[in-house]
């Protein structure tokens, strides 16, 4: 239990758990709508903003915010002035911005570390950055706790949501704003490349385990928080790569669910097929007798 003696370890573990929890909350919705890759696009697009913020000494969240706006404006502009499909546009814009971020980091290597941005470095996070991440995570979580049911209706049956007076457009804007904010937070814990896992894997895992949306959200949050907390702790022993450890843990949970989930797992499907075959054989035997 060596690392628990250090205060920075506790800080890293708690901040990671917070970010893991709120990203998992969002993942429950994101993977259902087929928007999973948006998380990837966002994670990469904000890199130049974060790099610029470090170079001029501004809070990284501000830089990320402007880069995010630049990314969405860029996508809207290209969409309007070309006949390219959406996935091509997203691919174009986010790689362009990511490349720009890498370029900036390599031109000003003293103020920006490429490794920190791409892989995250929660163990060495400065206090003011940790505060920003914690505030983003807590506020986002609180907002989600208020709107989670309305979001569920909106994503399940938007017409009904509107017909009972829910402002679905505002809700979606809030959702994507939270997603961007949490992507920025997750950048600090797991890095730009693995942000996508944080906003997809916990929800996808929970989806295999339950058909109850409320329970799905709880399971996802528990998985997200737990893997991030434990992952940050374990990363001390493997010297740094927190993102890699957290996402590996999430993947392990996913694989377990994928095979052993009681209803939607691979084994359950096999059992069901077997039961059908056996029942058919029995009927045939019964008919022959």
């Amino acid at each position, binding site marked *: 239990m060596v690392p628990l003696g250090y205060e920075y370890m506790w800080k890293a573990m708690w901040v990671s758990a917070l970010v893991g929890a709120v990203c998992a909350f969002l993942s429950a919705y994101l993977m259902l709508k087929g928007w999973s890759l948006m998380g990837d696009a966002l994670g990469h697009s904000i890199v130049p903003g974060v790099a610029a913020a470090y170079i001029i000494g501004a809070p990284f969240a501000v830089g990320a915010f402007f880069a995010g706006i630049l990314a969405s404006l860029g996508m809207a502009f290209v969409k309007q002035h070309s006949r390219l499909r959406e996935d091509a546009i997203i691919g174009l814009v986010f790689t362009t911005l990511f490349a720009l971020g890498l370029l900036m980091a390599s031109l000003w290597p003293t103020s920006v570390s490429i490794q920190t941005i791409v892989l995250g470095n929660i163990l060495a996070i400065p206090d003011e950055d940790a505060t920003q991440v914690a505030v983003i995570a807590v506020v986002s979580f609180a907002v989600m706790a208020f709107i989670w049911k309305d979001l569920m209706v909106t994503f399940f049956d938007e017409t*009904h949501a509107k*017909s009972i007076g829910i402002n679905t457009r505002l809700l979606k804007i809030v959702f994507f704003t939270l997603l961007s904010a949490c992507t920025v937070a997750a950048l600090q814990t797991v890095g730009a490349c693995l942000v996508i896992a944080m906003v997809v894997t916990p929800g996808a895992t929970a989806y295999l385990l339950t058909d109850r*949306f409320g329970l799905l959200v709880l399971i996802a949050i528990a998985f997200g928080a737990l893997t991030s907390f434990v992952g940050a702790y374990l990363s001390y022993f493997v010297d740094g790569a927190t993102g890699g450890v957290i996402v590996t843990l999430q993947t392990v949970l996913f694989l377990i669910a994928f095979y052993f989930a009681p209803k939607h797992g691979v084994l359950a499907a096999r059992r069901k097929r077997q039961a059908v075959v056996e029942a058919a054989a029995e009927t045939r035997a019964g008919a022959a007798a």
Partner: protein
Amino acid sequence: MGALDLLSRDEAPVREASITVRDLSVTYPNGFTAVRDASFSLGPGTICALVGVNGSGKSTIFKAIMGFVKPSAGEVRLCGLPVDQAVGDNIVAYVPQSEDVDWNFPVLVETVVMMGRYGHMNFLRVPSRTDRRKVDEALERVGMSAYRKRQIGELSGGQKKRVFLARALAQEGRIILLDEPFTGIDVTTEAAIIDLLRDLRASGHLMLVSTHNLGTVPDYCDQVVLLNRTVLAAGPTEKVFTPKNLERTFGGVLRNFELGGRELHDDDDARKVTVITDDERPLVFYGDAPPQKHDRDRPE
């Protein structure tokens, strides 16, 4: 005091269901006028078919009734109220088309029905005992109580429709809009749902059904609104749902066969037979008489 008092406290005063559409025109922001000068009115205890080709303005009428689009001229009133107020009072319930719902969504049947109660709850949407009771009653009424713990996508087409009707009941909407309720549903199930609609009609609900299924319209709809970018005809089914009006509504789009009386068969029945179909259930006229109900709907 006592139990009776408790029961009646949460019952809102029930307004008589009605839809009044007066000189309604809807022009979308891109300049397209989907509906012009449409007028019709419907009262309580009614099932009305909304019939027209694709693009005739059926969904625009639905949107105007739910307040999703603002009239550029004219007005819609529901139970005598302006649309926004009626929507706020949960007067309008909507049963979606099958394609518009994500059936893989991880929600249970009872959760879907509970969504009908959301408009009655505070913004945190915490269900009260009343909300739970209304959900139980609604599920019971459509005969889906046994399926309440199933994931919504595991049900058959007809069962799904019944669950969404239960949601409308739980919402206590006096006006129920049904969007293509019979698409992809077999005949037996269709009959069961029609029975349910009749049952709701008997309890004073007003149902507006958008449908391409012309053949069954005379079976269960007492009113018809024929639409082609405006209201061509509206009124009782026997008067409005005639070959002549349908021809005007559909132009050349429908398949229309006429089979001569005496040439077809040599007996006392000299009427010609007209078959009109929009690729779903065909509509059959005998002679020039008003459309007939099928035998299974006659009393006895």
